[in-house]
């Protein structure tokens, strides 16, 4: 089994526009200059290699391998890729084993050059992890709410203080008024109040 993407081959005269054969069997001599695509024998997956099957550079780490494998599984299931599922799984299996991976490295083509120029170009055009993403800076304008005060009713402290009914103080504990006074003077922390309790 091999990558079916490797099954096609162009005629050598793409730009010379060899006229395609119509379904009726006549040669189409019109303007159409579609190249002839010939079906050749499938390249074995060992020849395509696990790196090309998963779209990986030979330096890929385990996380990248897994991410590419998962993505290609999705593509295969949705019919977005011609690579069979079993080849995708085989590729991951090979790359998970260090010895098999090294052997596959020796026997596989390199899509990128040693200095990684293609990867740099891809990055320049926003390709991350094999997917192109937008990197232009959008315009943001947030409302200016730094001085905003929510319309909440805040009671007048003096009125609240005046409305308090002071309980009768027990004579046998003379320190109570002093303690209460101190407690009343402590600052209130509204966030410490358990509203639900």
């Amino acid at each position: 089994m091999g990558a079916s993407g490797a099954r096609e081959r162009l005629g050598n005269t793409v730009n010379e526009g060899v006229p395609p054969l119509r379904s009726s069997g006549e040669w189409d001599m019109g303007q159409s200059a579609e190249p002839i695509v010939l079906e050749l024998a499938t390249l074995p997956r060992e020849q395509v290699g696990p790196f090309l099957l998963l779209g990986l550079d030979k330096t890929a780490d385990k996380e990248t391998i897994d991410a590419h494998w998962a993505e290609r599984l999705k593509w295969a299931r949705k019919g977005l890729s011609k690579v069979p599922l079993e080849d995708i799984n085989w590729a991951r299996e090979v790359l998970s084993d260090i010895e098999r991976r090294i052997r596959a490295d020796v026997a596989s083509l390199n899509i990128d050059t040693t200095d990684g120029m293609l990867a740099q170009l891809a990055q320049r055009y926003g390709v991350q992890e094999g997917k192109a993403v937008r990197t232009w800076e959008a315009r943001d304008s947030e409302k200016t709410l730094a001085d905003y005060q929510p319309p909440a009713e805040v009671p007048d402290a003096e009125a609240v203080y005046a409305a308090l009914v002071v309980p009768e103080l027990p004579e046998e504990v003379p320190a109570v008024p002093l303690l209460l006074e101190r407690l009343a003077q402590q600052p209130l922390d509204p966030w410490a109040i358990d509203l639900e309790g």
Partner: protein
Amino acid sequence: MPGVLSIAESDSARYEAAAGFFERAVQAGCQDTHVLYMLAMVRKRQGKLHEARNVLRKIAQPDAHVILQMGLLSLQENQLAQAEEEFAHAWQMDPRSYEICYNLLLTRLTLGKIEDCLALIPAALDLASHRLVTQRAGSISDDGQPVAYASSSYDNPDERRFLLVLQALLQTCCKGTNGAPSLAELTAADEQRLLQLLRHLGQLDTVHMLLKALARARPRSTAIREAYLEVVLVKAKELIDRCAWTDAELLLRPLEREKSNNRATQLVLLNLLGCCACMTQDFDSAIKHFLAAIKLAPNDPRLHQNLALTYEWKGELPQADPYWNRFFDLLDDRVPVPPAIPHYLDHLAYEGLGRLAARYSEKEKWAGALNYVQRAAHLRPNDPDTLERLFQLYNQAKRPQDARRTLEKLRQLRPDEPQYEMYELDLIEVKSLNDIEKLLTEIDRILKHYPNDVRVEERAVNMVGNVIPLMGTLCDQLTDQMSKVIDQVRNLPNYQINWSAVREVMRDLLREFQKLRRITGKCLPLVSSDEHRRIIRDLAEHIDKKMEACRSMGA
């Protein structure tokens, strides 16, 4: 750097504290639109996009600001279609917002909706001309970073001009004409800004289409031509990632004729063309492309490897040799390697040499195979597997002295390995019946010395299997000699026959047949397959008949 980090840390702490207050207010029942909005903004700055969106959704009557923020969140999540929908909604609510209009325009551009962009640009131009500056210092960009107003491109006085340039490009793209006049008059700065925007669009199909139009409109611009070449290469890579070799090749071929001034991109182009040709089994074209690439970068090991593999797949192993050798020579620290695999390049070289040795062995070119295994053994001088291969190849190449020396080393490395005694037998040159007898006796001895050793048994069976045809050949030679004597006896008159000489010859032949018969007897218990047993029994029967004939002739 530490200063930046401490600012980031203090920002992070402030956002966390602010979010805490807002959350508690909301938990306490506060449904104030502005409080919810501020909580969402804090979450956005913290990068908690999902939470920010959830808070924005709680706002009962969202205004254009809220919808704009939702659009920005969608953009950050790369949900372009949703972002477009939200910006369009916000734009309906507030058609005077330049920010909304700009974001909608670029989102549509990213999605490749050229017509929709063209429809929007007049409004954007109008807003860019009349808008009031409302953004304050300290506001944030969509990636959550504070932006200083003075340094933001937002306040660029060339905004209107940029929109006009973009409009001209989109019109050119739509009409397919060879360049609107304004495109021909672009300044270097305009061109740079346009290219900058296109490079950040993130949709390769759209960028490709726009750059193609731009390259047509400005054929003399080197920067644009290079950008176009770059995007084609990146797009081809995208196709190759899906194993769509033919589509990638179709995309790249037109560029083959245009010579780029940039050596690096030209190199990438040639390499990709070579890979596509190789994968579509057009090996001649692949070789042509790889050779051209190597001319540009003679010290790139990956290119040498590609070319060597292509020659191999074409079946031209000797042509691949120099490129493999160069590849091995160039494997040094500059070559990128995967993380977490120590000594990767050493392993790579070793496996490569071993692989080539196997290729040559398959074609029975022992000298070539020997050369690569010798190099592999040089890399791993104490690796028994490599030395075993080396031993076998020395044997195949008829170099018994080297084979013996290698075997000695193997014995030192694995002194108790029973197989090596069998290897010793490989060194015996078997030509005569005596050699065969000696070999079988030794095999029998080793088998008895190492009973139940599967590997020894297997090897013994193989060796005996190799001897059987030789026994047949020797038997045939003896039979021929005997037939000649019998023919002469039958055809000559009795008085001309030297009977004493005939008897002498027959005695010699009988002795030889007896020896062969003894060997078949030794051989029979050593074979395991029924086929071999049958052949030996037939041979024994044949020998018996011949021995009888010898006796009848006076032996």
